[in-house]
């Protein structure tokens, strides 16, 4: 009986399976049909014509190769252009006088600032801009050699209601001797127009001047001519600036909110459309929109039903965020000591002070997160606006209803023939698309035509049980990441600030900006690849933003966050950088064949530290090896800095020459003869397996870092004449350098620290557990840093070095750390380095002077103030050979010499 039961069961199973199979077959059939139809689509959508081979060419070869030609001479044409394409159609070719920039070849890019008149009021921001230019390496005080002119009159705020508005601009400008209808002039502007429309009008005739303007609209932007700059407040630091707030790459990034907007809601006028619609994506959980209606004097006139509630909520959040009452967004890193340098005070203090510096913003979950999503408003196309509002209303209604209702009808009548064609499906399609993404299985959308084609009913059916919904939510939770911020300019005290576009602070806060800014020409859009750093949305698709943002995978979030930080650090963190970037962009246009490519602008360390005059080839820089998939060079050039005359064959330099030339990686040795006496004849130098070049230094300390043409290898080994080294030490250090080609790799370490008593930086040569510099008396570095040293740093710093005949190594360390944000690398070395006193009779070494040390202390402070922050970074490790001092046979060790103490 057991068996029979089994068979009955089996039979039943088989039957039910058959039934299932046929039902399933039906499904399959449908699926199959879909697939075959789909395949049919792919196979022959555009017919494969039988006479395809006989079709004519679109043009004859002759027509393509032989240009029809015009009688007009190219020269005449170019002249004619400059009269046709002016003002709003200006381009570099027609509105810029290149011949002014020719004067001294590559040095031709000089910027002149008109002196400002007495009693002229210049705003804080403009003062900073002017200071940046006059301190830059392009500044000239002679208008005759200038290539670019900058006005002395403050043009930043062109809002007539503003207190900083300067009237009579037209007359004043025309009085400038070299105005020449604005040719070769650069005008900075942050705000233009006035309430309520904020047009692009500056209130005076700009003529052919280049406009560097914040919140530029693509419509008025003259491509390749104007420069879009970020909006910055008057508190934006002149130099240095805080580093980004991204301190760690946590994955998944833990933040409370996914998407957030905080700021004013402009009830009417420009920018109000999207902002008023923002609450539709607010869900109170991970997507938060906090707006206030308080704006201007008469906001209550336009106030709507949501205003009171919104204002209350906004204030509540704000108070919680900053007990002091000041908008905490404004917080930037304190001036003076960078919190990052603080670890010297003790291991635990470093991090805690960092937390304090940024206040409640750093801790993610408990309080207000960094502001998120920023938005710039431009007039929307009228139809979009109305449609957006309508759709938004409809959808929010759907959102509210659908979860509870099992099946609900939503009636919506609209004459659709106006837009989107006769089928009226455009809107429905969008709606469907939106629902598919937002609640894929929850809602089923059906279209039922009623009473003719114009009117329809959209039926929304909820067809999923509650439990399933909850499951879904959990999945979404995993995708959560902190995202972007917006920062609204709260400190503008005027009644009606123009729409602020504040990329900078948002980018600093390490959340990813979600841009909803149709028609905004993004800052430095010429060179920055914004789509690699932000999530760009379309204002018209506001309702899709949440799903777009949720769909960003973890990996990309990680990347976007780092990119925003990189951009912040390279181009936005200080007024200096903003101004310099503007100048460099213009310079790149003028000398287009010696300019940076996009890769240089968009990868570390950023365009400002990559000088195209050195090379336009990526492989010539120390920063791009990994990105290009190449490795650094296999040889080095030793540069020995000789200051004392050659008297005997037993001088340390002779020994050093022997040691270095024995290295198998050495390609040549250059002796930089910086001594009062003329260099000895060739025969005085010992014979060597590598070429030896003796060049005359300029009797200057900085000349040791001159970019000599003779240096052909990427690696430079910089040596003092009295350095004591072993060949194996050199070899080992070189191999380490090849792993870190962008850093200084050297032997003797030094350190800096913050002295809280003196409120200044200190310098120490004591043996400590950490270091932040290695002396260039014996160090490997990339030859590009020689070029940066001579061309990037200002004359004033190099003069300081020459005057004191000191600190050149400190400056080099500052420079490299500023470029890499990383500490140098110290390698193992025998102890007796420089411990032996120089032989009697020779001038005692400069480092033996008592004032030597105090000087270096001053240098550190002078350099830090020029950089605007302390670029040096501490390291706690030293790189030794793998078997260094291990208890194994010496014969196994490749660098056994290093252990001979």
């Amino acid at each position, binding site marked *: 009986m057991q068996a029979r039961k089994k068979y009955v069961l089996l039979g039943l199973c*088989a039957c039910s399976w058959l039934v299932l199979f046929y039902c399933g077959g039906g499904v399959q059939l449908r699926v199959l049909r879909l697939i075959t139809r789909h395949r049919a689509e792919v196979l022959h959508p555009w017919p494969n014509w039988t006479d395809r081979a006989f079709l004519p060419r679109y043009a004859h070869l002759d027509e393509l190769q032989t240009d029809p030609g015009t009688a007009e001479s190219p020269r005449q044409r170019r002249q004619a252009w400059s009269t046709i394409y002016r003002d709003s159609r200006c381009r570099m070719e027609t509105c810029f006088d290149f011949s002014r920039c020719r004067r001294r070849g590559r040095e031709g890019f000089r910027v002149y600032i008109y002196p400002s008149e007495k009693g002229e009021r210049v705003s804080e921001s403009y003062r900073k801009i002017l200071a940046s230019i006059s301190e830059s390496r392009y500044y000239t005080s002679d208008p005759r050699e200038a290539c670019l002119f900058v006005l002395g009159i403050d043009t930043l705020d062109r809002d007539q209601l503003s207190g900083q508005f300067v009237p009579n601009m037209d007359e004043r400008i025309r009085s400038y001797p070299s105005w020449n209808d604005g040719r070769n002039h650069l005008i900075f502007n942050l705000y233009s127009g006035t309430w309520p429309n904020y047009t692009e009008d500056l209130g005076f005739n700009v003529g052919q001047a280049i406009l560097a303007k914040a919140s530029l609209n693509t419509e008025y932007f003259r491509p390749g001519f104007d420069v879009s700059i970020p909006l910055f407040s008057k508190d934006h630091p002149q130099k240095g600036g805080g580093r980004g707030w991204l301190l760690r790459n946590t994955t998944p990034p833990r933040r409370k909110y996914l998407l957030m907007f905080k700021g004013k809601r402009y009830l009417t006028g420009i920018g109000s459309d999207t902002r008023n619609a923002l609450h539709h994506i607010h869900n109170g959980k991970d997507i938060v929109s906090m707006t206030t209606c308080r704006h201007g004097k008469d906001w209550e006139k336009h106030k709507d039903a949501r205003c009171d509630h919104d204002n209350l909520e906004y204030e509540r959040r704000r108070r919680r965020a900053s007990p002091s009452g000041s908008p905490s967004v404004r917080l930037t890193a304190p001036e003076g000591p960078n919190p990052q340098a603080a670890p010297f005070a003790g291991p635990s203090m470093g991090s805690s002070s960092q937390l304090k510096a940024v206040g409640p913003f750093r801790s993610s979950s408990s309080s207000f997160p960094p502001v998120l999503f920023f938005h710039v408003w431009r007039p929307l196309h009228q139809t979009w606006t109305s449609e957006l509002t309508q759709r938004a209303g409809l959808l929010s209604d759907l959102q509210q209803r659908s979860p509870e209702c099992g099946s609900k009808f939503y009636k919506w009548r609209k004459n659709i023939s106006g837009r989107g064609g006769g089928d009226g499906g455009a809107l429905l399609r969008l709606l469907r698309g939106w629902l598919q993404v937002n609640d894929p299985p929850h809602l089923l959308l059906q279209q039922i035509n009623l009473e003719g084609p114009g009117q329809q009913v959209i039926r929304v059916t909820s067809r999923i049980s509650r439990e399933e919904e909850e499951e879904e939510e959990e999945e979404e939770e995993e995708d959560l990441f902190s995202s972007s911020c917006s920062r609204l300019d709260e400190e503008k005290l005027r009644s009606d600030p123009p729409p602020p576009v504040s990329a900078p602070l948002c980018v600093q806060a390490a959340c990813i900006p979600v841009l909803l800014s149709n028609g905004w020409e993004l800052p430095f859009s010429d060179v920055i690849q914004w789509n690699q750093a932000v999530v760009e949305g379309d204002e018209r698709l506001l309702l899709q933003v949440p799903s777009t943002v949720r769909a960003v995978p973890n990996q990309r979030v990680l990347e976007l966050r780092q990119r925003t930080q990189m951009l912040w650090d390279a181009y936005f963190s200080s007024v200096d950088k903003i101004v310099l970037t503007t100048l460099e962009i213009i310079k790149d246009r003028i000398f287009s064949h010696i300019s940076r490519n996009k890769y240089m602008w968009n990868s570390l360390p950023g365009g400002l530290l990559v000088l195209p005059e050195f090379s336009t080839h990526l492989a010539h820089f120390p920063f791009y090896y990994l990105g290009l998939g190449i490795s650094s060079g296999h040889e080095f050039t030793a540069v020995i800095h000789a200051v004392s005359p050659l008297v005997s064959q037993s001088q340390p330099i002779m020994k050093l020459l022997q040691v270095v030339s024995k290295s198998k990686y050495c390609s040549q040795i250059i002796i930089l003869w910086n001594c009062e006496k003329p260099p000895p004849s060739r025969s005085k130098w010992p014979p060597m397996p590598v070429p030896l070049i003796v060049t005359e230094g300029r009797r200057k300390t900085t000349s040791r870092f001159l970019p000599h043409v003779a240096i052909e290898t990427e690696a430079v080994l910089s040596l003092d004449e009295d350095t004591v080294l072993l060949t194996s030490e050199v070899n080992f250090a070189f191999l380490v350098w090849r792993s870190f080609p962008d850093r200084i790799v050297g032997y003797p370490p030094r350190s800096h620290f913050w002295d809280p008593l003196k409120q200044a930086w200190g310098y120490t040569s004591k043996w400590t557990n950490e270091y932040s510099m290695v002396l260039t008396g014996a160090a490997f570095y990339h030859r590009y840093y020689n070029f940066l040293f001579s061309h990037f740093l200002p004359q004033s710093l190099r003069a300081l070095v020459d005057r004191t005949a000191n600190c050149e190594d400190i400056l080099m360390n500052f420079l490299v750390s500023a470029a890499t944000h990383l500490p140098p690398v110290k390698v193992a070395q025998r102890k007796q380095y420089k411990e032996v006193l120089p032989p009697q009779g020779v001038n005692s070494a400069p480092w033996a002077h008592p004032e030597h040390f105090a000087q270096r202390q001053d240098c550190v402070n002078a350099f830090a103030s020029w950089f605007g922050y302390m670029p040096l970074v501490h390291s706690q490790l030293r790189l030794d050979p793998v078997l260094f001092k291990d208890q194994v046979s010496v014969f196994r060790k490749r660098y056994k010499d290093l252990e001979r103490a």
Partner: protein
Amino acid sequence: MYASGKYGSRGPALIPRMKTKHRIYYIALFSLVLLGLIATGMFQFWPHSIESSAEWTLEKGSVHDAPLIRLPVSSPIPERGDLSCRMHTCFDVYRCGYNPKNKIKVYIYPLQRFVDEFGVPISSTGLSREYNDLLSAISDSDFYTDDVTRACLFVPSIDVLNQNSLRVRDTAQALAMLPRWDKGMNHLLFNMLPGGPPDYNTALDVPRDRALLAGGGFSTWTYRQGYDVSIPVYSPLSTDVVLPERQPGPRRYFILSSQTAIHREYRAELERLKEENGDALLLLDKCSNLSQGAASARKRCYKGQVYDYPQILQESSFCVVLRGARLGQAALSDVLQAGCVPVILADSYILPFSEVLDWKRASVVIPEEKLSEMYTILKSIPHRQVEEMQRQAYWFWEAYFSSMKAIGLTTLQIINDRIYPYAARTYEQWNNPPVVKWSSVNSPLFLPLIPPRAPGFTAVVLTYDRVESLFRVITEISKVPSLAKLLVVWNNQNKSPPEESLWPKVGVPLKVVRTKENKLSNRFFPYDEIETEAVLAIDDDIIMLTSDELQFGYEVWREFPDRLVGYPGRLHLWDHEMGKWKYESEWTNEVSMVLTGAAFYHKYFNYLYTYKMPGDIKNWVDAHMNCEDIAMNFLVANITGKAPIKVTPRKKFKCPECTAIDGLSLDQTHMVERSECINKFASVFGTMPLKVVEHRADPVLYKDDFPEKLKSFPNIGSL
């Protein structure tokens, strides 16, 4: 189908034990099912094949069979293109909607032949071969849809590639007659030769409302940035002539000018340059003794000497591309194909696909005014860069210029990138030639950050059942100041972890995770419990590491957060005799791996290991119960291009109690297996990503003659 597999496999095993009656019953049932299956199959596939073949025959046909449309004189003419059009004003993005694949849908209008009321066609060529190629390419691509209501972009089948063959007014009328024209909204026109005599406009003269224009030869005044797409002028020569691929390198001529009909002012300038610089320059012109036609297009002459075009382009490093009446020149395509670096002298010209391509890496753009300085400018470019540019130029041609298909799909991709900017292709994807793509690395943690010390690290201890040893490890690790949390991965399903009261008391949270399967991969799972960036992976038998050593390891990791920072180092070697990789654990001078028995790394690599490990490496590791550390080393080295960091001196990590003989033979098989792993992984990765270095990290004052108590990490290096 799923069901049949299940039952089918069970059936035969049951049959021998059945009685005959039941067997028959069963067989009958089975055959019934089989029959049903066959019938359904027939039913499903048979009619479809007939249907589709019918469609096939329908689609075959001649271009001349396309329906004829007569344009009424009074039919409306679209407005001239609006210069202020941008994506957000003139493009209906709602049509594209949201698309999970982030691909726009493109619809192509069926072919129609338009004639005016006298029956004269609006175009002298009708559908050209190139435009036909373009349309077939689009229709074969993922972008295509035949559902007009779902389309986001419409491509008319009216060929406007060459304005010379068009009747401008009638073409415009024809465009306006398209059923979905709607003021040209979301329509895309392809044009390569715009303008006509005498002034040669730089954009198509056909009025086109808001239609997007993919045009060759835009100038900065006609190009609507972010709306139009600048495309190359296709050169049909590229299909006729096969140029052998040439490696970048020095070539016979330095500068070559091969264009014909250059304006005499330019020619005079070029002649002067030639006089100054001699044979480095080659100036070619049309051969006077050849008649017009295809033959003359393939020859160039200099003083009676005949050269083959475009072959001669391969003999030169730089090739001049001068503007003519039109800005866009087909010569640019020939020059790129030859791997010659184009020197472009065409003021205000918008280079093809300049929205995404970085032309500075493949060409030299010189203002027309500076033609006389061309030689000096080009001479100043370093050799290595010239080679790079040659490679880049050829790559641009190959990927974006070589066929109408390439041009068409690139255009669509650019528009696609604008509509779905968050899914746009990156600069590297657009610009890096395959060689670079293959060898370059983009580290996921590229920002130079030294993370703060404060959050500390999470120690993940993988254990099976060595409880005693585990407790010792836990006690040791808990002394490390920066330890934030302890996570014990309990990999033994048969045994429960000890009771809570038995665990050693530690000052940090301790969490035990029980796994479902005894897999080595469990150690690299990105547990939610890991809240810190830094993870310390540690075996349950590593009891010899001191607290100083671990703390120092963490400090080193902070300086190298994108690397593996570990204690025991290992090396891979190339075995010349065997011709394969070998694993080495001896005391060598080099390191290419660190064992994850004790190593710090970034939590992100857990994600990569668990979800992004290439090939079947993960399964291999779980199956062999070995090599998870080698796999991790491969993964990290491959994605960052960097070597791991070995910290502190060598230690004895092996248990001292193990007997020598046993250990040796065990060692032998172990080594063989691990060598096998390296070879296996190298073949999966397609390369050997591991990097060999000769350095390790020690504290700054390690073994220096300095009071121990002043050192931060005194207790380092004891065996």
